[in-house]
């Protein structure tokens, strides 16, 4: 995420950012979905499950965390940014996995 002087001034004056940066952000998001063929609902489900698994081992700051698709050079990546509050002392038992 980069910020130009124009964006900063707009922000100070409470104006909307220049529309080109909005366009770029929206495009990058929609293309990540187009290219991976993941619909937002599926992504949401995947996000929930990832958080669930990681939460078994560490306590996460769920307000700050984010799992999203990013795309660069026509390669789409799943990017998870999950700030850890603290490690769990006792690892919660995994759900019964047919063992």
């Amino acid at each position, binding site marked *: 995420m*980069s*910020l*130009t*002087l*124009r964006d*900063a*001034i707009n922000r100070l004056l409470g104006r909307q950012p*220049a*529309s*080109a*940066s909005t*366009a*770029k952000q*929206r*495009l*990058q998001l*929609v*293309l990540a979905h*187009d*290219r991976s063929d993941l619909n937002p609902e599926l992504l949401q489900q995947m996000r929930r499950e990832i958080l669930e698994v990681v939460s078994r081992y560490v306590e996460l700051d769920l307000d700050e965390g984010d799992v999203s698709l990013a795309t660069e*050079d*026509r390669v789409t990546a799943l990017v998870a940014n999950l700030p850890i509050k603290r490690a769990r002392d006792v690892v919660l038992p995994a759900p019964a996995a047919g063992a």
Partner: protein
Amino acid sequence: MAAETRYILICSGKGGVGKTTLTANLGIALAKQGVRTAVLDADFGLRNLDLLLGLENRIVYTAQEVLAQTCRLEQALVKHKQQPNLALLPAGNPRMLEWLTPDDMKTIAAMLGDLFDVVLIDCPAGIEDGFKNAVAAAREAIVITTPEVSAVRDADRVIGLLNTEGISPIQLVLNRVRPKMMANQEMLAVSDVTDILALPLLGLVVEDEQVIVSTNRGEPLTLNGANSPAAQAYTNVARRLRGDDVPIVDPSQERQGLRAKISRLMNTKIF
């Protein structure tokens, strides 16, 4: 026959971004530079290349009659009077009963290879059968788009399909650039579009009213050496396509004067 014929697809995904205008202007520009060029209108449902080239009254046969062997290829080719190096071949007409197949397009392309150095294929909008037909005849591609979210999104889709088909190289032409809006960051920047689509830039065409005037007349801008910005841009695309090293100037960075300087200052990244 000298070097191998180049088969270049001109496509965009979205309609109305300037595919056919590019095909017509590029065809004329290449012909003027001494390249024997055929333009193949693969958009037979809604064909318009004839109109932009001013050849609409001279079409008698199409590729379909050539395939059916009711006429020879030379009879179906419509030669441009002022630029005899250029010929138009419509793939078909909107009333034809049997649609062409990808194999038909390959056959036609091979026939054109005997007579021409470059075959430009004007692709229909969309990614359905017409697109697949056009791709079948092509080896390389020029994707044309405008700095708008919908056009860039559709271009991205098309690039994905071209990659799957093994088309290479794929190059980008950015059309309808408004330098002032770009400088004010109210339009996607050139680098935004090339970054997102990850394609090498072959050309940059600024929004130019003369394009409309030229289509009204059926005389592409490159035909009469017009000095308009778009005419120069199309000629440069033709030269780069032939391997000439013609630098691309970003018009949003080129403006002079105090306002432009302030505008550039405003666009510096501070964070």
